[in-house]
């Protein structure tokens, strides 16, 4: 009989370790195109994502709830969603050179989840509902897409500045064209916006039912503010001249603002929206 607790305990360290190896291989591919790294990077990432998926499935099956009770678990899930999405994008585009940037963010998420583990079957009664599951899943997917958009925005700005300064080194040689990065950024932000719309709508509806006296939950306000900011940026990109560097700055700064507001909400206003 497999000891699931021991298995999950081991995966807590193994998954970030394999992500770290994949990140290192992608970094070497970016810097030197070394043959071993080119051969190893993708299989390592596939292994990391597979182990991560196994970890999430085993956790959910064993503890009877999705690992999204603490902000650290949510970050871990966001890391997984970003990595899986990146794997799909790389399969489509056949370019591994944005890998180190994306996997850097994934690794941060995974390390945070590793350092703040929470194992247990107890789930706050409030969270034992279908609405919560849909809300949290949509929110995780939405923020993952925003994370990816921010990475593509950051990469865009790196290449944009290198070209404007007429520096033609590794960044220039390795990264995809600006138009491609702009499209990826727009695409990721659009998907994130769609998921966040679902998340905040269900979240608001759910909060109105559960916390009838606390409708001004800070995290919900942050959710609506994030929705409005991204909505404005996407509208600007689609119908105004907010393309290229403007959309890139917008994606990066919005995601930083989201992360900061999460920290503020979770650590300074901890009486709200915390269930564990």
């Amino acid at each position, binding site marked *: 009989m497999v000891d699931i607790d021991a298995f999950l305990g081991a995966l807590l360290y193994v998954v970030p370790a394999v992500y770290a190896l994949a990140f290192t291989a992608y970094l070497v591919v970016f810097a030197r*195109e070394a*043959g071993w790294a080119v051969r190893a990077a993708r299989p390592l990432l596939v292994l990391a994502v597979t182990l991560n998926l196994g970890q999430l499935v085993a956790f959910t099956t064993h503890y009877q709830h999705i690992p999204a009770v603490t902000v650290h678990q949510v970050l871990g899930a966001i890391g997984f969603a970003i990595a899986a999405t990146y794997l799909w994008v790389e399969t489509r585009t056949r370019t591994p050179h944005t890998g180190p940037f994306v996997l850097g963010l994934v690794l941060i998420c995974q390390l945070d989840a590793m350092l703040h583990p929470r194992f247990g079957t107890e789930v706050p009664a409030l969270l034992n509902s279908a609405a919560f599951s849909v809300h949290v899943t949509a929110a995780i997917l939405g923020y993952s897409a925003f994370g990816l958009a921010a990475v593509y925005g950051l990469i865009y700005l790196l*290449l944009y500045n290198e*070209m*404007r300064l*007429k520096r*033609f*080194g590794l960044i*220039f*040689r390795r990264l*995809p*064209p*600006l*138009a*491609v990065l702009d499209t990826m950024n727009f695409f990721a932000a659009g998907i994130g916006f769609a998921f966040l719309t679902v998340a905040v709508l269900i979240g608001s509806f759910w909060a109105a039912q559960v916390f009838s006296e606390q409708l001004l939950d800070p995290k919900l306000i942050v959710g609506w503010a994030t929705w409005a900011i991204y909505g404005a940026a996407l509208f600007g990109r689609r119908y*105004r*001249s907010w*393309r*290229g*560097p403007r959309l890139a700055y917008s994606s990066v700064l919005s995601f930083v603002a989201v992360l900061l507001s999460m920290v503020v909400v979770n650590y300074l206003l901890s009486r709200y929206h915390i269930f564990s």
Partner: protein
Amino acid sequence: MNVLLLGVNHRTAPLEVRERLVYPRGEAATAVQQLKNGGSLGQVMLLSTCNRTEVYAVAEETEPAAARIRELVFAPKIEDRGYVYQQRDRQAIEHLYRVACGLDSLVVGEAQILGQVRDAYELSRASAATGAVLHRLLSGALRVGKRARRETEIGAGAVSVASIAVELSEKVFGELSGRRVLLIGAGENGEVCAQHLLGKKIASLTIANRTREKAEALATHLGGEVVAFDALAEAMGDVDVVVSTTGAPEAVINAKMVREAMRKRDQTALVLLDIAVPRDVDPEVDAIPNVFRFDLDALQEIAAKNLEHRAAEIPRVEALVQAEVDSFVAWWGSLHAGPVIRDLHRAFEEVRAHEVERNAKRFAPDDREQLDIFSRNLVRKLLMGVSQEIKGYRRDHPAELERLAALRQVFHLGAADAAPGGDDDDDET
């Protein structure tokens, strides 16, 4: 039997010599036929580009073959003042493989040479001037040439002004199909750049020149439209890439014009390629967001970096070349009659042993030994005549060498070679 090379290239001969030695396709076919009809040169290939004319041949005797090549290929066109080099066997094979990888090219790593090697081989094949050795030699050349480009970055990055202009535009816009280009100036450099951009299926080409007639002539030649020289700001609002190459003593595009154009184009990206000296575009435009200005210094820096990067890849390509040469030499060594007979017996024995083992259960235990003896005798007798025949084959006899190679190929006695072929269709310039 020897692999022989005689040639002239950009290292040994000046351009005026090389240009006299260029063999157009029809003339090359005639030369190959003449060489082949001489008797001692059954397998021969003539590779002729503007940077090299080389003859690769498989010959029984080196010196008469070399003399014939000099007489038929080089002597009618040039007086040899030490321009023609001659190499044989491993040195010649190594040279061909380095040529296929672009290591011997004027611009290291250029891609067109691989297509030209393949075309030269096709010409020999069409002239029935190939055989097992040349086939294996060229298979190796095309294979190592492709590997060099696939597994290393020997061909990475653009190195000419026109191709760098395309690379920079693509780095901003990705695919250039559907993009609009404005060419300012009707000179030769601008025309070459425009041709490269047209090769990328751009949507439109607009030309502006102080002398409108020149712009119209170029527009007719390239397929574009003409715009008045004093309407540049407005024209820039409608295009994505501007190539400026006038001989004007001062800037023809200033920051005010670019700001006006950017307003018109809703601040979408604009690439300004300034390949004029003195510069046509005022450097102050660098302050305008989403405008990418590149002058000749920038283009030359990219070329230098790309060449430097290619040079750093040379050791990796040399390793691939050596491995492929070793593979050819090993194959060549395996074409002695002895090893062919040994490998043939080994292959038959493997089949025999496998079949005996597979069918052993159908026989009584006492009969199995008889089955083994019977099958061994059968195989030995089947191969006896063949072995006797092969034993007398000499590798320096072309027809017998062909048969030895064919036996290896038919019975899979060693690695089979794919037919030479490739994807590179361009010609070296």
